[in-house]
């Protein structure tokens, strides 16, 4: 088995030979993807998910449902094709295997099959318009560039990744406890962020206006390099949602991790950013103290924690009590840690979002689900890559016609998790919903008929 043959991705890799024979060089290309789509990508699971129970045998199942869902493919050479739709699992699978898209996006469910959209006028009674769509969120770590000093742009490391972790915690808790949603899937975006799919029926049927309201509920960070105050928390106390987020997640993370990891108060350049957020008189006092201490090397490691305590003490002590000071500490913590969502993604039903289990072209990493209950353990640098998975396939040896190839690779864990904590509970609930609405309709019809 030559290196060339390995790179060309031929299936008949029989040899249980030395490590080099199984080794797959790092990379992202059509050949690798072909094998991935051939053996690893969970086509059937995605299809079952998107069907939301309508692929069953119950008389109330809407057979047209899955065919009205839009998928879009980005092919090699950036060719982009929209409004793809499929009526069966095999159609979906064959199309993906044949076209080998570099990226798959999922759009809304429309009123009619997107392939037939041109037959319908834009206005009037027969309209081609979205009717259902998951409530989705997109969090990207580049939106935090002004508060992380370890990386910029597309880079992400274990020092700044926890910002994503706490975003997941805050949003996930609110979605469940406040909004009452249950079927929530968090996915690693493959490089520098996370996506969230809320799949309850109620969520899928939300209007754009309602989605905007939910996005605004989460929208706290308002500002950019042109304004000073990015987060404003008026009022004597915080709304329960903000208070809970602060006490359960943000405060602890800021004080225990972020302060020291990002050295937020250790140098003048850094602490000035925080001093800008508090009233001038207090800032001046602290500035004076810290400039003096610059030369002393006492407790160098803990300088951030020490200064933070000083800041809090000065703000909350009796000397300069004013309305504006009460929320200063929280505002600082929120500015640095509170989730920053891409509002536009969540507000519109027709926004397309990358499908889970795609492979990111720039990193080769698979977009795997993240368990919100264990998100502290998630390590983006350990997510399986395309080449790694192919190597694992090689090592496993050839098994003709084996159903679950992913089982003998690192992807197995992710697919299992996807099924057990998300897909199966979701489908169970969908089945119940379909049956109960059917029974209600039957009952109504019976009542209408009775004399």
């Amino acid at each position, binding site marked *: 088995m030559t290196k060339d043959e390995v790179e060309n991705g031929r299936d008949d890799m029989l040899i249980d030979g030395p490590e080099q024979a199984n080794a797959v060089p790092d990379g992202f290309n059509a050949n690798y993807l072909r094998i991935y789509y051939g053996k690893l990508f969970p086509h059937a699971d995605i299809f079952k998910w998107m069907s939301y129970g309508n692929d069953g045998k119950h008389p109330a199942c809407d057979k047209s449902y899955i065919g009205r869902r839009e998928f879009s493919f980005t092919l090699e050479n*950036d060719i982009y094709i929209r409004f793809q739709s499929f009526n069966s699992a095999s159609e979906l699978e064959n199309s993906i295997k044949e076209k080998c898209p570099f990226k798959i996006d999922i759009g809304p469910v429309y009123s009619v099959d997107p392939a037939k959209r041109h037959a319908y006028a*834009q*206005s*009037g009674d027969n309209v081609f318009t979205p009717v259902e769509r998951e409530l989705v969120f997109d969090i990207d770590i580049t*939106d935090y*560039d*002004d508060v992380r000093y370890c990386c910029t742009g597309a880079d992400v490391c274990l020092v700044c990744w926890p910002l994503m972790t706490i975003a997941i915690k805050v949003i996930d808790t609110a979605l469940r*406890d*406040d*909004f*009452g*949603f249950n079927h929530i899937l968090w996915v690693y975006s493959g490089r520098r962020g996370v996506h969230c799919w809320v799949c309850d029926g*109620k969520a899928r049927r*939300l209007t754009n*206006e*309602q989605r*905007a*309201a*939910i996005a*605004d*509920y989460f929208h706290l*960070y*308002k*500002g*950019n*390099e*042109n*304004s*000073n*105050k990015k987060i404003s928390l008026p*009022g*004597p*106390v*915080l*709304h*329960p*949602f*903000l*208070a809970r987020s602060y006490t359960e997640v943000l405060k602890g993370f800021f004080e225990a991790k972020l302060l020291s990891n990002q050295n937020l108060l250790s140098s003048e350049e850094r602490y000035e950013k925080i001093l800008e957020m508090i009233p001038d008189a207090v800032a001046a006092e602290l500035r004076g103290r810290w400039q003096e201490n610059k030369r002393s090397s006492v407790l160098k490691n803990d300088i951030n924690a020490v200064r933070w305590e000083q800041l809090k003490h000065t703000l909350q002590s009796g000397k300069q009590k004013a309305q504006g000071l009460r929320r200063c500490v929280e505002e600082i913590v929120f500015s640095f840690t509170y989730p*920053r969502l891409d*509002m*536009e993604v969540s507000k519109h039903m027709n926004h397309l979002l990358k499908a889970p289990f795609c492979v990111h072209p720039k990193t080769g990493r698979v977009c795997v689900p993240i368990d919100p209950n264990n998100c502290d353990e998630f390590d983006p640098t350990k997510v399986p890559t395309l080449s790694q998975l192919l190597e694992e396939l090689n090592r496993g040896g050839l098994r003709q016609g084996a159903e679950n190839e992913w089982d003998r690779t690192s992807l197995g864990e992710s697919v299992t998790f996807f099924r057990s904590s998300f897909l199966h509970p979701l489908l169970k609930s969908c089945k119940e919903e379909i049956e109960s609405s059917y029974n209600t309709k039957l009952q109504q019809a019976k009542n209408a008929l009775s004399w």
Partner: protein
Amino acid sequence: MQVVGYHRKSSSNDVVVSTLPLYRSAPPLEVRLEDFELFAMDRLRVLKGISDGLSRGKKPEEMEKLVMDLWKASMRHPQATEDVNKDNISHFVLRLVYCRTEELRKWFLSMETALFRYRFHVESSQAQRALMSEFNLPYKAVSNAEFESVEDKLRQVARSMGQTLPIADAIFYKVPFEEVPELVAGHRVFIHKGHAYVAMNQVVSLVVTQFRSHLSKALILTNRKWTFTIREQEKDRLTPIVEALCTSYLGPDYSQPKDFAEISIKDIDQIAKTSFPLCMRHLFEKVREDHHLKHGGRMQLGLFLKGVGLKVDDALAFWKAEFAQKVGAERFDKEYAYNIRHNYGREGKRTDYTPYSCQKVILSTPGVGDHHGCPYRHFSEENLRAALARMGVGSRIVEDVIDKARNRHYQLACTLTFEAGHGSSCDAGVNHPNQYFIESQKILQSKNGSVA
């Protein structure tokens, strides 16, 4: 805790009748042609006043007073009994005027909903109850037991808004959160497991959502009727009135630059310095500096330039020259050119998008990495001073401008800047960036006799 917990006993058996109409259907009245137009213009004055107030960032209490003053000034009929008729007639005439495009519908819907909201709020709670029942809202009042279980959270929400809950007689309704989007978005209700706990004084929101939804659907139907029947039928009588009513108040939309020479890219840097309002100048400088702008900025500046007279090919050349330095020519063609052509109506739906008015600019919210929006609203005082200094505004006037901005009179601040920069007054006040540009060019051209 009861739903009916009044402290005052009504002294008479009079039925409480609200004069707030719901506009469910057009009244079967005869209207004089004269009144058709006049009533509509009076109402439009009120709606425009609301629009201005909102874009100046007035607080709800201020808006309420403003609305009542506007209504008193414009909508009173000489015969008091005719008030309700004028109310109804003017609303339905304006439906005809504002049903015709998506943008018009959006504006009308927003203003009528706001109008309804403030008028509803000042009604007595009996009248409010009566109106509520007309909407058939099936929401239950929260039981005593449940109230106690969430009481501390409800108090926390009230306190967070600077209010206090009455110790007894606090009435709350439990409604699905989707029914009160505004309250949820503004953190003005406690929500738990998908239900919002709405206070009696917030009931307004429930009713307003219903009002809005009903009007939204009605406008679509009206549009259909207008397009297919009325417009043709009335082409010698009502149609000309309807069409004139719209443009006379919203002002020109600046989508078709007419009055002067088109601008070419070689002139752009110069005219940016002399004739662009601060919002566009800031965006323009950022493009030159960063060779990039995020979507909000591209829209705001791009459409402004279109209104200024930049043709589509020149626009593509301008954006490409900048963006190519950051992302490369190929990526520009692939990812950005389409949207520019889209703005000029050359792609997709082929809608010819109109440049943003000051109201629209002011109401947008720039986020991380954004530079659009109104600088008088979003810039910190320090940054605003620096920007004004760079525009050559004298320090005494800068103080005036800062003062206006601090008091949320963003358009007045911009007008002062204009007047300082051009040495002449702008009586109409700035309400559209393209208007700023045109006025500026007029003044400079009359001084120099050429594009300055």
